[in-house]
């Protein structure tokens, strides 16, 4: 196998610039004459804005302008749209109230955008922002989803603060299944609000060119083309031909950089209004306040079983917090990326789910790593674990008893999705072997001698990735298609430029995609460059989210490579004086079948650009563009098992072992895939044990608004992880891949809470399992004994 082939742990090509300080992130870029923007943000959760007095701010040294929502209305800037319309149980579209980049009437959460100060330096803009006087008439606020429908109204357009009341499945069928149940497991749980916290804060630089009346926007975006589409079609009216968006190196996203945000929209508007480039970089404090948050569900779940533990039906009732406004894709997260996953890995024949999405005086909530699928997996895997305990069954055995079997694929679930392939028992078996499940009882006894409570927790998850077949999502309300594009361009000397719509912000595309192209075209990996993140260079594209880059973006690259090979065969046939049908392409060479007459890809590429001897009916050049629309979602799945030890005297939980066995289909680069698993688990551990975005229920203030208050996972909070793989190749994309970016964050929370509740001998506890909560439970358990 040549170096860099598919399947090899190739070291990352992008590392050198990051390791030497030569990464180029948005905040590293400067434009001549630029102004710094600082936002005046609401200190109140809910208030009418009656007056804004910026006289003193305008006189402050270096301040060039102070602009407000009223100024933006003058220039006909529109509202930030929601790109997915969910239809409610009555057939009505969801309520999508206006979401202006700067407020026009009232503020609806702490951090909402009231005004922007533009000054020569960021420090001067901050000084100016301190001097802007805003008269607020405070209104009662609510931050709790469970109370939203009785709370003060946020938007006239959304009575009862209800965005939608939506159902999936047939309630009567579910009731019938429950009527036959031997046992019903019931659980109330909260999926805690998370704040994504990519390490690079969001940033934007907008520059208007008066000569051409065109704009360039550098943005920390996961999907610059989607951002351009939203800005162009819905907010600014700037034609796409006059708006170039560049997302250079981006320091992590995890979903939070998918969306079109107020700040970059304001920069884009202000650059023309003022006639100078405008830059903005978030403080971490602003990231906490105004990045889209994740999760925040309140759920009641019931599962019906027969006497042998076979699942008969599942009923789920969820209230999902949308925050104060609908972010771009907020509406589809607790519906089509959540309820559709409630079958999990199991043959549950009937599933009924009711979701009410509500507005509250909190930051908008949207996709965060996993997005709907962690919420589904958490409730399902917690319920299965509790059911096993209640019925006196081994949790591994109960799962096995209900798994969809390998010979049942393709498998139509009762919640719309059709799983193409999987082998769930294989992953579970591998995980139980890796962790020595049989030896757990002995380890628990040994821990007890040391005064520690040891517990074990399973999580058998599934996710829908490779987002998404356009026709399917279109029928469900998506305003866009979710295909991907690629352009594979040979240069005359045989090097290859691959332009991809998939944006990389830590995923290592420059390496993985190069491996795919190197293998497919027989070109050395060093001769390949991967270009991404620039609407000025790359064909229309849909970007990176939902573990789609390789399954969708990589498939588009494969398709473009296929076109290159087809054209290359025509050129080779001409040069070798053979018919096209007789040309084989293998390992970078075009060969006349059954002969030693052969031309290399490099020779063919050269001829394409120096066509002195060339087929008369063929265009010069070797440069092909392809679009790929997936036929189905992909379904990565697996089992994670963790073991914890709790010190009942301190409540401290130590993760003593973690095995992750995932089926991602074909693996192109195991080094990168394992890294994704590690990072995903860390975020899941964060949710389960450390992180919680908390708003004060009285004041509506975000009380976890800094790294002093919001507990990020740190190196000493985490163990090393043991990662295993099983493989069933995806049946419907050319690479056989499924996606690996979100798995860890989906699998981890129930594994941990299952382990902790097992150790404590309690049914349930809410995340995060902080030492205080664990200590209280350990003390009450001890007192009860």
């Amino acid at each position, binding site marked *: 196998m040549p170096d860099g082939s598919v399947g090899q742990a190739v070291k990352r090509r992008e590392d050198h610039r990051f390791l*030497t300080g030569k990464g180029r992130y948005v905040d590293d870029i400067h434009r001549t004459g630029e102004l710094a923007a600082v936002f005046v943000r609401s200190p109140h959760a809910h208030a009418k804005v009656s007056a804004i007095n910026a006289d003193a701010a305008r006189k402050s040294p270096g301040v060039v302008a102070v602009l407000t929502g009223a100024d933006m209305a003058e220039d006909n800037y529109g509202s930030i749209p929601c790109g997915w319309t969910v239809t409610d149980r009555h057939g009505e579209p969801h309520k999508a109230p206006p979401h202006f980049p700067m407020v026009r009437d009232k503020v609806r959460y702490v951090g909402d955008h009231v005004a922007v100060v533009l000054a020569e330096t960021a420090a001067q803009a901050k000084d100016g922002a301190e001097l802007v006087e805003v008269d607020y008439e405070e209104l009662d606020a609510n931050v709790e989803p469970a109370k939203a429908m009785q709370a003060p109204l946020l938007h006239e357009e959304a009575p009862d603060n209800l965005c939608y009341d939506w159902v999936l499945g047939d309630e009567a069928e579910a009731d019938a299944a429950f009527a036959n149940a031997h046992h019903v497991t019931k659980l109330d749980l909260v999926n805690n609000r998370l704040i994504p916290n990519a390490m690079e804060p969001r940033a934007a630089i907008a520059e208007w060119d008066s000569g051409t009346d065109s704009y360039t926007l550098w943005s920390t975006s996961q999907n610059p083309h989607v951002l351009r589409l939203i800005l162009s079609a819905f907010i600014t009216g700037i034609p796409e031909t006059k708006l170039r968006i560049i997302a250079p190196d981006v320091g992590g996203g995890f979903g939070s950089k998918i969306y079109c945000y107020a700040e970059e929209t304001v920069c884009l508007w202000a650059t023309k209004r003022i006639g100078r480039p405008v830059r903005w970089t978030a403080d971490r404090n602003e990231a906490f306040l105004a990045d889209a948050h994740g999760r925040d569900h309140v759920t009641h779940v019931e599962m019906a079983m027969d006497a042998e533990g076979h699942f008969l039906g599942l009923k789920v009732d969820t209230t999902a917090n949308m925050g104060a406004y609908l972010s771009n894709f907020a509406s589809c997260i607790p519906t089509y990326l959540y309820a559709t996953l409630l079958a999990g890995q199991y043959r549950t024949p009937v599933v009924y789910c009711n979701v009410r999405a509500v507005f509250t005086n909190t930051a908008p909530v949207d996709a965060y790593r996993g997005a709907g699928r962690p919420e589904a997996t958490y409730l399902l895997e917690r319920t299965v674990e509790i059911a096993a305990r209640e019925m006196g069954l081994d949790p591994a055995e109960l799962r096995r008893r209900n798994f969809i079997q390998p010979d049942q694929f393709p498998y139509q679930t009762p919640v719309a999705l059709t799983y193409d392939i999987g082998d769930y028992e294989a992953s579970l078996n591998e995980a139980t072997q890796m962790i020595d499940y049989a030896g757990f009882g002995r380890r628990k006894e040994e821990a007890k001698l040391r005064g520690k409570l040891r517990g074990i927790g399973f999580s058998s998850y599934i996710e829908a990735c490779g987002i998404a077949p356009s026709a399917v999502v279109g029928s469900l309300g998506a305003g866009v298609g979710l295909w991907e594009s690629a352009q594979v361009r040979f240069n005359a000397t045989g090097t290859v430029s691959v332009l991809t719509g998939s944006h990389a912000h830590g995923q290592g595309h420059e390496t993985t995609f190069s491996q795919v192209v190197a293998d497919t075209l027989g070109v050395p990996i060093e001769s390949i460059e991967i270009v991404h993140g620039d609407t000025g260079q790359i064909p229309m594209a849909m970007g990176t989210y939902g573990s789609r880059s390789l399954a969708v973006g990589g498939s588009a690259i494969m398709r473009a490579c296929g076109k290159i090979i087809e054209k290359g065969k025509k050129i080779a046939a001409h040069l070798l004086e053979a018919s096209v049908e007789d040309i084989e392409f293998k390992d970078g060479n075009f060969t006349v079948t059954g002969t030693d007459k052969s031309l290399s890809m490099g020779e063919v590429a050269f001829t394409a650009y120096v066509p002195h001897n060339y087929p008369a009916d063929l265009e010069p050049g070797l440069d092909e563009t392809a679009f790929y629309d997936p036929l189905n979602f992909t379904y990565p799945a697996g089992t994670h098992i963790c073991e914890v030890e709790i010190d009942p005297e301190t409540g401290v939980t130590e993760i003593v072992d973690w095995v992750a066995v995932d089926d991602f289909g074909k693996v192109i680069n195991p080094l990168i895939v394992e890294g994704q698993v590690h990072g995903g688990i860390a975020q899941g551990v964060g949710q389960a044990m450390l992180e919680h975005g908390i708003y004060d229920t009285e004041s509506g203030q975000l009380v976890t608004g800094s790294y002093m208050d919001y507990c990020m996972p740190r190196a000493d909070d985490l163990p090393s992880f043991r990662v295993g793989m099983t493989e069933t190749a995806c049946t419907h994309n050319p690479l056989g891949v499924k996606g690996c970016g979100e798995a860890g964050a989906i699998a981890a929370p129930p594994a941990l809470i299952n382990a902790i509740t097992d150790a404590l001998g309690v049914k349930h506890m809410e995340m995060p399992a902080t030492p205080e909560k664990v200590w209280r439970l350990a003390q009450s358990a001890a007192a009860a004994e």
Partner: protein
Amino acid sequence: MPEVTMTVNGQQVSREVEGRTLLVQFLREHLNLTGTHVGCDTSQCGACVVHVDGKSVKACTMLAVQAEGGDVTTIEGLASGGELHPMQAAFHEHHGLQCGFCTPGMVMSAVDLLQKNANPSEQEIRDWLEGNICRCTGYHNIVNAIQHAASGGGAS
């Protein structure tokens, strides 16, 4: 405005700065050394770690004027003669970075750890990194890279 003079990556530099200018702002905005990053506003994340007089320092926690006369090394000054520092090489070899944003601070911090403790245990590494937040890697491969750098295997 006060003038500040210091040595940065072996070169003496002098600039006029506002008194409130942080060392990290001085490096990024006055010297265009953008490898040192700002990831928070509470001196928690460690993306801005540089060395001042040989010790790791969060450059957001120090005023530029406090580094007067000092000897500062940033991530840009760590490699020498086109060769990666063994710690940089170890991070590459063991996939100790993903998005790259925390990486400069992480590497500079790790280099200082090995100056203080040439052969740290896994737990000592994890404890030392308490002041550097990474959101991508789960720290697994960062710890792995530092262990290998400590045992001299970084550039293998």
